[in-house]
């Protein structure tokens, strides 16, 4: 991997990653170890959140194709090493959330994936990409389910900020896609 060529994108667009009956198994321990490290890395790398959420769906039965997807993430990281998060003063204390969802992105069970990220005082603080646990029957339903996760996170942030003495003065805004 040290000599690998960096790639621009983390994951192939419209990838068909899934668990297939005729898939070629890969070294499971190695796969789980690599993905485990990527999950920890995603604590300071919001850019890899979606790709890591995809490859972590195959931890129990990883194939050569899944391993190729992991290697692609590593190649991307090679081209963008050492990145992180900056926290600075923007002169306000606004709390904002953003959500989005795909629809039936998972080929096996037709479940959607949604994501959110939140800003406190202009700084990115939390984010998540997760396959939904119910099959949404419309894209609107998928978006709504995604918004629920975003709202839950905002409400948790409000509780936390209030506890440490920074209760949001203005309403928290949630931006969504429809």
């Amino acid at each position, binding site marked *: 991997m040290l000599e690998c060529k960096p790639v621009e994108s983390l994951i192939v667009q419209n990838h068909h990653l899934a668990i297939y009956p005729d898939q070629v198994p890969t070294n499971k321990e190695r796969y789980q170890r690599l993905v485990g490290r990527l999950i920890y890395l995603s604590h300071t*790398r919001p850019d890899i959140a979606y790709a890591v959420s995809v490859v972590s769906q195959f931890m129990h039965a990883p194939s050569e194709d899944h391993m190729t997807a992991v290697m692609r993430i590593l190649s991307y990281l090679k081209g963008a090493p050492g990145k*992180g*998060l900056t*926290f*600075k003063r923007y002169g306000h204390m606004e709390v904002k959330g953003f959500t989005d969802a795909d629809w039936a992105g998972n080929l096996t069970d037709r479940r959607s994936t949604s994501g959110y990220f939140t800003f406190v005082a202009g700084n990115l603080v939390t984010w998540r990409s997760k396959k939904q646990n119910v099959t949404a029957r419309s894209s609107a339903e998928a978006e709504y389910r995604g918004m629920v996760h975003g709202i839950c996170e905002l409400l948790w942030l409000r*509780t936390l900020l209030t*506890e440490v003495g920074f209760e949001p003065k203005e309403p928290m805004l949630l931006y969504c896609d429809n």
Partner: protein
Amino acid sequence: MKRIGYHQGNSDHTLFIKRKNERVTLLIIYVNDMIVTGDDVDEIKRLQECLSTKFEMKDLGGLKYFLGIEVARTKNGIYLSQ
């Protein structure tokens, strides 16, 4: 912790909070690593002294690394990376 005026956070059970005279002191714990922060310098000192009478502790100074995450302070802000 309760005896010296801290309460456990509801939003995060590993967070202990003390608010006194418009100032706040926070203690966050992960197994055997902890961060003490806040805007009450005297209270931070008191907390450190109190904890070190109960536990063997080492003060590693300003936050540089926590659970494998590097914390860098620059003129542009605080930078987190791994």
